[in-house]
């Protein structure tokens, strides 16, 4: 009999005996399923958060802040500075003028729908070019706000997460009342967590007639960024910091997504150890329950290799079953789950959906396989090393 | 030949029926047996004749479907499970075919096991265990684990465990069944000595005629009933 068919016949023989050891086999499968589900779940949170940030930013859009500030919250630009930035070379020109939006960014307290406690919801004052700069804004309900009026539009994520943000209702901020004229999407980007209004109206409400915090621009092309940045940096009238939106959002999300990923991986690693011990136990007892059978096989001429491989195959099959089960559970339970958390950098809320991506599913199955192989390896070696003569007598 | 005072075991009209599926299996039917104090009785019979079942009934491991089992004047078939366990601890020593030692305990600790149920102090327990092992000739194997002992030695430990609490009766189920002839002979000699020198009442199930001739009396079981009493 050749090697392969030896392996096959022992493996089939092993697998057939699984029903007899259902409890142990199931506990290994469940253990591994648990690890995989948790790993996938936690990484899906981080992936979902990152996704919001990455779809928001692109290489052909840029944000300009005051030099020394690390986010919009503590930046500040004057009307004159904003004008100089909009006129810089590299900014895309359209029929309505340069694709540059001077913006104001504040946060307001609105209760969460889930808990009823106040959360810091971002309120953004934008110029008319903002839609063009973002590029993927779409009204899914109602209409855009009208310039000069106390009107706002609400991102679909914010509308879902916070109380009273429905199209047509009124929003009271300080002494002023604003009408919500519509709900918008922005391709899953961070703007969906925000409330937008006319920058000029927000300036007067906040008594900052000439103040902006940032300028968002759409460039002629990705390549235009360097020229744009150099032009601004070399202008002695400007003290600013220029980054592409892709880079800006990567920076902005690093704290929160690092936190989630860090804790997630920590849990997953610890848990993997727990599951590994479980898998080892299962396979060791599977081997020891079959001591006599294995010895008999060896006595009638099966080699060591096939015995080792067959134990590994069994363990791998159990682990894969656990992996598929766990990944499936995580996908069913978590994919698309809507959540909101605070972005540490701006102290403002970001709404996002958990994303169980194909890459994550692959990681999950891979983890399960590794656990299965490691969990099977040592017991397999023990099985192969068993002295045949004494093992035959084992009861 | 046995009088009321000298009879230790009295089994009257005992029937034992097992249910297997819808089928009733009559292992023992209307069996009577008396064993006198100080006897060394061999129970012989083919497989399935009910000899182990009878031994279990005498040892209080099982109850008759019908009939009475009286040991030392006490109806043990009427005891509760709890009382029965306590009764076994005090009155019965078991010797098994496969020794049934605890693989995780040394010879000494195995023998000490039944004494855990008594009020003896640790040092007293150790002393009794030592004496019992000495009686079976294993004083030099106190700290050995069962797997490091030969079959004959393991069975001696088994016997030491059975006698350590000085039981009323010693019940042996095929004590030589798993041993070679020489070791088996040694075990039988040991049992004989215990019977003759210490007056222990022994009931031994065996299918080996060679073993049964060491007993003071042999009874044959067949299909759940006493067949003939072998001539002395």
């Amino acid at each position: 009999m050749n090697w392969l068919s030896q392996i096959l016949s022992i493996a089939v023989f092993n697998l057939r005996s699984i029903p007899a050891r259902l409890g142990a086999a199931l506990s290994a499968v469940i253990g591994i399923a648990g690890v995989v589900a948790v790993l996938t779940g936690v990484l899906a949170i981080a992936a979902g958060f990152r996704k919001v940030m990455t779809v928001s930013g692109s290489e052909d859009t840029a944000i300009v802040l005051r030099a020394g500030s690390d986010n919009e919250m503590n930046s500040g630009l004057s009307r004159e500075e904003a004008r100089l930035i909009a006129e810089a070379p590299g900014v895309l020109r359209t029929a309505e003028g340069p694709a540059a939006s001077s913006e104001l960014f504040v946060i307001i307290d609105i209760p969460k729908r889930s808990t009823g406690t106040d959360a810091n919801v971002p309120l953004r004052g934008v110029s008319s070019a903002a839609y063009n700069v973002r590029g993927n804004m779409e009204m899914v309900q109602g209409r855009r706000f009208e310039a000069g009026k106390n009107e706002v539009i609400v991102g679909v994520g914010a509308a879902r997460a916070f109380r009273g943000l429905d199209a047509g209702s009124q929003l009271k901020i300080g002494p002023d009342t604003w009408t919500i004229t519509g709900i918008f999407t922005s391709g899953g980007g961070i703007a969906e967590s925000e409330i937008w209004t006319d920058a000029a109206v927000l300036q007067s409400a906040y008594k900052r007639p000439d103040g902006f915090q940032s300028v968002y621009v759409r460039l002629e092309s990705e390549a235009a960024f360097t020229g744009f940045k150099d032009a601004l940096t070399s202008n002695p009238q400007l003290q600013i910091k220029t980054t592409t939106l892709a880079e800006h959002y990567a920076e902005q999300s690093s704290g929160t997504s690092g936190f989630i990923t860090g804790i997630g991986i920590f849990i997953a690693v610890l848990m993997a150890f727990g599951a590994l011990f479980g898998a080892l136990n299962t396979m060791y007892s599977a081997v020891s329950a079959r001591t006599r059978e294995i010895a008999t096989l060896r006595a009638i001429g099966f080699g060591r290799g096939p015995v080792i491989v067959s134990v590994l195959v069994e363990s791998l099959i159990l682990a894969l079953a656990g992996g598929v089960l766990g990944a499936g559970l995580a996908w069913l339970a978590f994919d698309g789950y809507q959540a909101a958390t605070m972005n540490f950098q701006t102290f403002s809320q970001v709404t996002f959906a958990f994303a169980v991506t194909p890459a994550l599913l692959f990681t999950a199955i891979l983890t399960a396989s590794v656990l299965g192989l490691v969990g099977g390896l040592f017991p397999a070696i023990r099985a192969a090393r068993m002295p045949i003569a004494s093992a035959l007598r084992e009861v | 030949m046995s009088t009321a005072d000298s009879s230790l075991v009295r089994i009257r009209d005992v029937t034992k029926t097992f249910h297997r599926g819808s089928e009733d299996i009559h292992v023992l039917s209307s069996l009577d047996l008396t064993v006198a104090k100080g006897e060394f009785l061999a129970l012989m019979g083919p497989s399935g004749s009910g000899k182990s079942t009878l031994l279990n009934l005498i040892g209080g491991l099982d109850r008759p479907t019908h009939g009475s089992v009286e040991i030392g004047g006490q109806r043990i078939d009427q005891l509760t499970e709890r009382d029965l366990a306590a009764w076994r601890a005090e009155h019965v020593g078991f010797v098994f075919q496969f020794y049934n030692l605890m693989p995780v305990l040394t010879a000494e600790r195995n023998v000490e096991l039944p004494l855990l149920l008594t009020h003896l102090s640790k040092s007293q327990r150790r002393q009794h265990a030592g004496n019992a092992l000495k009686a079976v000739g294993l004083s030099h194997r106190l700290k050995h684990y069962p797997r490091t002992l030969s079959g004959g030695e393991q069975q001696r430990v088994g016997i030491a465990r059975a006698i350590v609490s000085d039981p009323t009766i010693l019940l042996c189920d095929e004590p030589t069944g798993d041993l070679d002839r020489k070791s088996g002979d040694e075990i039988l000699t040991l049992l004989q000595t215990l019977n003759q020198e210490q007056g222990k009442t022994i009931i031994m199930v065996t299918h080996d005629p060679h073993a049964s001739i060491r007993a003071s009396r042999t009874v044959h079981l067949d299909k759940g009933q006493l067949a003939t009493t072998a001539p002395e």
Partner: protein
Amino acid sequence: MKYLGLIWSNLKRKKLRTVLTLLSIFVAFLLFGFLFAIKDAFGAGVKMADADRLIVRHKVSFIQPLPVSYGARIGQVPGVQDVTHLTWFGGIYQDPKNFFASMPVDQDQFFVLYPEYTLPPDQLYHWKKTRNGAIVGRSLADRKTLNWKVGDIVPITSPIWGQPANQPAWNFEICGIFDTTKKSADTSTLYFRYDYFDEARTRGKGEVGWYTIRIAKNAAPEAVAKKIDEQFANSPYETKTETEAAMMTGFAQQMGDIGAILIAVLSAVFFTILLVAGNTMSQSVRERTEEIGVLKAIGFSGTLVLLLVLAESCVIALLAGLAGLGVAWMLLAIKNPVAQWFPVLQVPDEAMMLGAVLALGLGIATGVLPACYALRLRTAAALRRNG
């Protein structure tokens, strides 16, 4: 206890299996410890909150300032005993990674409102005499990257407030290092003098972040809060007053879903591992049917056998469980790996207790099935399995 030896010997029967079981339970309880430390950290502010303290802030949002003149007006509201103010400074030392909480405060009123912080009198005196003086909490001063001592001059920059005019950074002199009387209070904060701050900053002069007040013993917090908010209604700076606990709860809720999810996930982890470990423990009893039969033949009563089996699983669960809890506690006591997110991270005492109870519960739960099996086992049948 005379049966201990027997239990111990049984645990040593399959050393590898016992060790693996111990390890997986250990890991579960290690996680349990961390879980509760994190959960506690999320709620730390709430736990530390003083019932008599209220926070007065701008109604629209926390980032909107209030005028410093409000302090005197708040102080006149009936039921208000003491008032002080704080302002978020967002200071950084050299590198954005060296981020910590930093706030300008009123050096005279601060300790009146926050008696849980203790500063030696000579250091307090020195701070009150030093215009650019600052005090730092023990855990901040001891940070490896900082290692500040009294007398050090530390340059701090703030992305929010920039620098004082014509200076590259805010140079604070460390006048004192404060401790806390509350066990798990956070001491990773730097406080400096508001008078110096207000004079040196280039914008926002005359504004503060929020007010902290202490109400009189017999005053009702809701009533006082309502009165304060009414006082400033329809002004350009409307206020929102709430108890410290309510504000902290709100803040924790902002992290919100993430905290809840972490906890749900960790619970799932915990129970999965326990399920697996429990199965192994049950299995190890089932494998011993014959031996249990022998024990019963020898005269061990069913109850005694049941107790022995239970004791065995309880020993495993307690040994591993307590070790896991202990190690979790110890690791966090030695080093807090996430100081930038949770300045105070420790396994709370209640969690240690709960963990110990859970470990015992696990021992009983995993032992009870096999123990009942051992109890019901018919002795004769158990012995026959061998022949």
